[in-house]
């Protein structure tokens, strides 16, 4: 599947103004499954949530965007319990690490660090259990592999919408 990426920008009708970039900030991106921002997988993940979890997801993204904009090391901006490595796997002799943020309520945001201070959201899940099931690990790993395979043949910037 051909993947594209677009910045995570929350719509103004949420009342939140996505912070302006500066040199050292982290830039959060979401995956699109076609050359159209409306295919954002993060948007689709949120659509599957119930009202309570949607509110928690919004609050989690606000918090994520605010912290990412500071440009500081994310694991220092959150508690260790909140932000840590969730899963790792080997690809082309290199270890790929997937991190997760436990946001508000049951919301967990899973992401990859990419070069040039890019953070790519892989998945947003409402999780009642802390540990990932094997099925969830396989799903996350699959998304991460697709992204990294896409970036082996394309530069990140050429896939940004």
């Amino acid at each position: 599947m051909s993947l594209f990426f677009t910045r995570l920008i929350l719509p103004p009708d949420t009342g939140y103004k996505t912070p302006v970039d500066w040199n050292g900030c982290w830039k959060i991106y979401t995956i699109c499954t076609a050359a159209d921002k409306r295919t954002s997988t993060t948007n689709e993940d949120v659509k599957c949530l119930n009202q309570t979890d949607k509110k928690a997801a919004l609050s989690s993204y606000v918090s994520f965007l605010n912290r990412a904009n500071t440009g500081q090391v994310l694991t220092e901006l959150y508690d260790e319990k909140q932000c840590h490595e969730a899963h790792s796997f080997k690809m082309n002799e290199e270890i790929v690490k997937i991190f997760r943020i436990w946001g508000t309520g049951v919301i967990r945001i899973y992401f990859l660090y990419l070069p040039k201070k890019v953070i790519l959201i892989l998945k947003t899940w409402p999780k009642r259990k802390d540990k990932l099931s094997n099925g969830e690990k396989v799903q996350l790993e699959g998304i991460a592999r697709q992204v990294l395979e896409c970036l082996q043949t394309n530069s990140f910037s050429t896939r940004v919408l």
Partner: protein
Amino acid sequence: MTNSTALVTTNQNAAEDNFFDAFSDIGQVDPFELKKDHLGAQMAALMAFSGKSRSELTEILGWKKSRVSNVMSGKCNLTIKTIWEFASSLGFDFEVVFHTPCNSPQIQPWQIAQREVALTFPLPTIEVQTAFQVARDLMNGSYKALYFSVPIQKKGNDVPIGLAHQSQINTISSPIQIQIAINS
């Protein structure tokens, strides 16, 4: 492009710009909650920028670890005293600066530090010199602060690099040395 095609494209762009519509049915976030989270993020960033860990800060402030976490969580209605204690313990002070909602004039210490790094790089002018030119500068006492030497494969006639045409440089194949001098 016809007018109707242009209209469709414009509508599509507008739709794409508002692509994140999953929150459209839950209304706005309380602005005060947004402000609290922003403040929490800034405080956490100050701690990270200062190079202090949560446990170090716990010790310095004499607070419980949970309180330190709460302060930086963005969920608390912080008092001025808490903010002051937190900032002071990291060697910082703070001001209250008012501004319009769409204009944030504040630059934080970590942004200033990044700006200073950005001003330091790229390094000063880089100049390519031949070994002969370097030797000449050394003898004249007008040498540069730093030299990198790059071996180059040389082919054909022995034109010194400094005098060679670009096309000749491209065809050099036997090893000679080029010096890259950095002016401070």
